[in-house]
C-alpha cells in the first residue's frame, strides 16, 4: 500500500510542472491582462521595464464602447460579429454538403477528400497571400467570367467601402438586450426536451421578459452615444470571409465524414427499408445524430474567428480600416501605438465573447467525463 501511495505522489509530481505553467501562463496571465486593462499604461514610457501604471477602473472599456475616437474599434467589433456568423454558416454548410456528397462513395473519394482538406494544412499567412493575389482588383477572380465570354466582374473584394445591414450604435443597449434575450430563448428551447421545468424558469422566461422589455421600453433606454453612428457589414470583408471558408470547410467536412462513417450501416439500411429517401435519411437520422460534432465545430470555428488575425494581416495589411477586426486592432494598439492598457481592454472584450461559448462547452464536457 505504501508503494501505491508513493506512485500516486510521483504521478502528481509529474503533472506539477505543467499545472504550474498552465496556472501562470493561462490563468495568471488572463488575470494580469484584466488588471492592465483597468490601468492607464501607455504612451512614451510604456516600454520601460517598470512602466508607470495607474488604476483607472473601467474607463478603457467605456471609451471603447462609447468614446468619440473609438468608432474604429466599434466597426471592427461589428465586422467580427458578421465575420463569425458568416464563417460558421459557410464552413459548416459547405463542409456538411461535401461530406454528404462524399458519403455517396463516389469514385476517387480519396483524391477528392485530399483536395478538399489541403487548405487546412496551410498557414493563414500563406493562404492570405495567395487570396490577396486572387482577389486583386481587375485581376484574379474578377477576370474569370471573361473566359466564358462574359464581361469581367469589377467587385472590390478587399477595398470596397460599401456596407450593408447597417444599424445605429446609439441603440447599443437595446441591441445588447435583444441578443441576450435571443441567446436565453435559444438555450431554453434547446433544454426544453431534457428538463422542461428548469428550461422555462431559468432560460425561456427571463429571455422573453428581457426581449419584451427591450422591444417595448427601447426608447426609454439611455443612448450609448450623443450622435448617430452607423455600423454595418462591410463588403470589403467578403473576400476575407470567402478565403477563411475555403480554408476551413474541409475541416468540417472531415469531422462530418468521420461522423457519417461512425453511423452503423444497419441503422442506415433500416431507415432505407422504412422508405426514407437519401435526403430524409440525412435530415432526420444522420445529421441529428451528429449534434455533438456540430457543437464542437461551432465552438472551434467561433474560437478561430475571434482570434482571426493572420489572414486579415496578410490579405489587406494592418492599415485597412474597412476590414478591421478586434484581434488585429489589439495588436496595432498594443505593439504599434504602445497603448498597452487599451490593447488589454480589447483583448478582454474578445476573451469575454469567446468565454460565452467556451465556458458552457468545457463545463458540459467536464460533466460528461465525471459522470461516465
Amino acid at each position: 500500500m505504501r508503494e501505491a501511495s508513493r506512485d500516486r505522489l510521483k504521478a502528481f509530481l509529474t503533472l506539477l510542472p505543467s499545472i504550474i505553467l498552465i496556472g501562470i501562463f493561462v490563468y495568471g496571465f488572463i488575470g494580469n491582462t484584466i488588471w492592465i486593462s483597468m490601468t492607464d499604461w501607455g504612451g512614451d514610457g510604456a516600454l520601460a521595464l517598470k512602466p508607470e501604471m495607474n488604476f483607472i477602473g473601467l474607463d478603457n472599456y467605456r471609451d471603447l464602447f462609447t468614446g468619440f475616437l473609438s468608432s474604429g474599434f466599434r466597426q471592427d467589433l461589428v465586422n467580427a460579429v458578421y465575420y463569425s456568423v458568416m464563417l460558421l454558416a459557410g464552413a459548416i454548410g459547405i463542409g456538411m454538403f461535401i461530406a454528404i456528397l462524399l458519403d455517396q462513395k463516389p469514385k476517387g473519394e480519396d483524391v477528392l477528400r485530399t483536395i478538399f482538406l489541403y487548405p487546412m494544412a496551410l498557414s493563414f499567412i500563406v493562404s492570405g497571400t495567395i487570396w490577396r493575389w486572387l482577389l486583386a482588383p481587375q485581376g484574379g477572380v474578377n477576370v474569370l467570367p471573361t473566359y466564358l465570354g462574359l464581361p469581367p466582374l469589377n467587385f472590390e473584394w478587399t477595398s470596397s467601402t460599401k456596407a450593408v445591414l447597417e444599424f445605429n450604435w446609439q441603440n447599443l443597449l437595446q441591441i445588447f438586450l435583444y441578443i441576450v434575450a435571443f441567446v436565453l430563448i435559444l438555450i431554453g428551447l434547446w433544454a426544453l426536451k431534457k428538463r422542461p421545468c428548469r428550461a422555462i424558469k431559468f432560460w425561456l422566461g427571463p429571455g422573453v421578459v428581457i426581449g419584451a422589455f427591450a422591444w417595448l421600453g427601447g426608447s426609454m433606454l439611455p443612448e450609448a452615444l450623443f450622435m448617430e453612428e452607423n455600423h454595418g457589414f462591410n463588403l470589403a470583408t467578403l473576400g476575407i470571409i470567402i478565403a477563411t471558408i475555403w480554408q476551413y470547410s474541409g475541416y468540417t467536412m472531415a469531422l462530418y465524414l468521420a461522423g457519417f462513417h461512425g453511423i452503423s450501416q444497419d441503422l442506415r439500411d433500416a431507415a432505407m427499408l422504412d422508405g426514407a429517401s437519401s435526403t430524409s435519411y440525412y435530415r432526420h437520422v444522420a445529421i441529428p445524430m451528429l449534434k455533438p460534432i456540430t457543437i464542437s465545430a461551432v465552438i472551434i470555428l467561433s474560437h478561430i474567428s475571434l482570434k482571426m488575425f493572420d489572414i486579415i494581416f496578410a490579405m489587406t495589411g494592418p492599415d485597412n480600416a474597412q476590414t478591421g477586426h478586434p484581434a488585429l486592432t489589439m495588436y496595432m494598439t498594443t505593439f504599434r501605438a504602445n497603448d498597452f492598457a487599451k490593447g488589454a481592454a480589447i483583448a478582454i472584450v474578445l476573451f469575454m465573447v469567446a468565454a460565452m461559448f467556451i465556458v458552457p462547452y468545457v463545463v458540459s464536457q467536464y460533466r460528461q467525463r465525471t459522470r461516465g
Partner: protein
Amino acid sequence: MSTTSTATASRITPGSILLYGILILLALFFLMPAYMAVVTALKPPAEIDLSTAWELPSKFHWSSFYDALTLLKSNIVSSIILTVCATTLSTILGSLNGYVFSKWKFKGSELVFTLFLFGMFIPYQVILIPLFQTLRAMNLYGGLPGLILAHVVYGLPITSLIFRNFYTQIPTALIESARLDGAGFFSIYTRIVFPLSIPGFVVTSLWQVTQVWNEFLWGICLTRHADNPITVGLAQLAGGQAVSWNLPMAGSIMAAAPVLLIYIFLGRYFIRGLLAGSVKE
C-alpha cells in the same frame, strides 16, 4: 440523389452525373488558389499581368524560387529550430500528462484536465501582453528560446488531450497486472505505455509541427528581425507596396511545402490529429 450504395454509384444515372458534376466544380474551386500560386511563381516578373494571370507561363522560370529562398533562408532556419524544439518538448510533456490523466487519476484530476483544456480555446490576444512582459523580464524576448517556451506551454492542453484519449484505449487491466508484478509509476510508463505510444507520438507531433510552423501572432510579437519565423518573413516579403507577385507566390509555396508534404504522405495521421483536436472523447 438516388446513389446510395456502391453498386448503384458505378452506374450512370442522372443522380450520379449531378454528383460528379458538383464534386468536380467544388474541387476546381478548392484547387484554384494552388493553381494560381504555382502559375504565378513560375512566370518571369515581366510576364505577370492582372489580365493574363490565369494563363500558363510561356516558359518555366525557376529563379523566383531561388530568389525567394535567398530572402527567406534565415526565416526557414529559425522555423526549423523552433518547430523541432517546441514539438519535441511539448509532445514529451503531453505524453507524461496524458499518462497521468488517463491511468493515475486522483481526486480532482478531471477538474485539472478541464482547466488545461480551457487554455486551448482562449484567444491568444488575451495572454499576449503579460507573455511579452514575462519574456522580457526573463531576458527571453526577441529570440527563439522565448518563442519555444510559449509554444511548449500553450501546446500542453492539446498534446495532453490527444495522449489522454490515446492512453484510455490501453486496457487498465494491463496496468493493474504490471502493478501486481511490482512495477512502479515510471517503469510502467517506460516498459508498457511508452512502447505502445508510437502512433500517439506521430499524431501529436504532426499536429504540433503544423501548428508551430504555421503560427504567426507570437512570431511577429515576440521575435526580433534576426529570429523571425517563416510566416513573418513571408508576410514581410508580400507586404511591400510594389510587389512583384512571383516572389510572394514562390515564398508561399516554400512556406507551405513542409506541412503539405506531411499532409500528402501522412494524411491519415494528420486527419487523426485534426479530429483529436476537436475534443472528441
